[in-house]
């Protein structure tokens, strides 16, 4: 009985948490699209600053990781393909698995590690040092003030980062293709472009926008939920990372299934 009860309780908690995220998303979206025309402006400078930190500053590590992922993908697919003498299909395999799946996913993982955790730490620290209370006593809404600029930055940067990650992954594949599969650089990229449909790239970009939404809301929500005491900031940062990874995978599953069902037979 206790077991059933605990399943019930964690299901309710989980749904309540998703509800909180949806509410936060709703409020932040309103502050981005609805409130600015009414005069209460979005903090554009803050959004640009966040975009720099979410996007531009994560380029080096993202490039490195996705380049290696590209090489690994090429190696793994070549392992099977060469049994059939079909090494020339390496470019296709790398291109499709990167644009549809691994590009957006690896980008999300890097952004969670760099920015999702930073969002939770920033807002958590502000909560502990009473800065969130100070915002409220100055009649400033913490969601409009803190979450909205982060969300704008994330929604703009995630597709850009993902596109770059796709390109770097393909370049990694090209390294293998050129050195071990008899491609030239131009023939590898030509094969890649031939293999890709617009649909592959767009579905990856749609996913990346959804990942951005999840990462921002989970990071900010965990920051707001931080308890009192500075050790709690560390705890909410960790929780933000774990929950973001889990929810990104869930969203990935839902959208992959959706694209599969709605795709051409």
């Amino acid at each position, binding site marked *: 009985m206790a077991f059933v009860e605990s399943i019930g309780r964690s299901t309710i908690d989980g749904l309540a948490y998703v509800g909180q995220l949806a509410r936060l998303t709703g409020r932040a979206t309103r502050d981005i699209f609805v409130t600015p025309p009414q005069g209460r402006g979005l903090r554009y400078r803050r959004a640009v600053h966040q975009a720099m930190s979410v996007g531009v500053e994560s380029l080096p590590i993202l490039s490195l990781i996705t380049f290696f992922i590209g090489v690994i993908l090429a190696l793994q697919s070549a392992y099977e393909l060469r049994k059939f003498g079909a090494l020339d299909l390496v470019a296709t395999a790398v291109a499709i698995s990167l644009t549809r799946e691994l590009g957006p996913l690896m980008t999300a993982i890097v952004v969670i590690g760099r920015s999702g955790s930073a969002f939770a730490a920033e807002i958590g620290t502000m909560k502990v*040092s009473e*800065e969130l*209370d100070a915002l409220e*006593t*100055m*009649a*400033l809404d913490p969601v409009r003030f803190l979450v909205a600029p982060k969300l704008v930055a994330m929604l703009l940067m995630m597709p850009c980062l993902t596109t770059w990650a796709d390109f770097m992954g393909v370049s990694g594949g090209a390294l293998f293709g050129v050195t071990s599969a008899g491609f030239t650089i131009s023939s590898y990229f030509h094969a890649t472009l031939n293999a890709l449909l617009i649909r592959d790239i767009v579905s990856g970009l749609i996913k990346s926008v959804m990942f951005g939404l999840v990462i921002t809301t989970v990071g900010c929500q965990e920051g707001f939920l931080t308890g009192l005491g500075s050790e709690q900031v560390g705890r909410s940062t960790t929780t933000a990372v774990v929950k973001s990874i889990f929810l990104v995978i869930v969203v990935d599953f839902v959208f992959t299934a959706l694209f599969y069902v709605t795709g051409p037979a």
Partner: protein
Amino acid sequence: MIGHSHTNANMEREPTPGGVGISVRDLRVRYGEREILHGISFDVQPGETLVILGGSGSGKSTLLRTLVGLERVASGEVWIAGKNLATISERELDDLRNMIGMSFQGGALFGSMSVGENVSLPLREHSPLDPSTIDIVVRLKLEQVGLSGYEDYMPAQLSGGMKKRAAVARALAMDPQILFFDEPSAGLDPIIAAGIDDLILKLKKVFKMTIVVVTHELASAFLIADRMLLIDRGVVVASGTKEEMQASKLPRVRQFFDRVPEPELKDEMSYLQILIGEEPAERR
């Protein structure tokens, strides 16, 4: 005189002497199931400085947070400027918040902004003033708290006392009629703390503001208070002028003012009873 018009009008002249008072009736506040404040009533006259005294866990900080709208009123009434916080709408609360200033215990300055940006934030967000006028106002406010020339410093570069002064400057930005202080001298050495007391006295004298201070520092309380309120375990034990409080014979007041230590707790049970707000058997 609320919201934008309030700021505008007050830019051009001194704040009205004897602004706004506070009236609290049978206030109860809960955290979840636990009741923290058990029916508190008191008044603050316009232009008066009220010091709320109490030990740790007495509920004095909760009372202050309720007065500035950070905690919900479970029952009772809190009247500020003709508005009851128990029934106020979000929009009215925002308007009311532009009439009050709050200085938090640790300052609560935004770490990512310079001192000048911290002070100008409420003005940039709530007033129609242009940036150059805002700069002038910020310089003026920093001068009032004795921090001229510190506009470009980051909060992390300031000492504890300077942070508190900067926080007061930010609280003053919108020309509030009521100023709230949470433990203004906590964590400061006696000399710096005396400086903050002087600042509070100056604000009271020059601007005739209504001031509410929460503290457990007796020396500072007797220096700045017009009237005092002693709170213990969520109820008002005593209230009155400095002289009345000093002359009080109530055991709890004497214990607080004469700094008599609490008898040590004998067992875990009585600690838990205090936590849930019950008096342990042997102390009743």
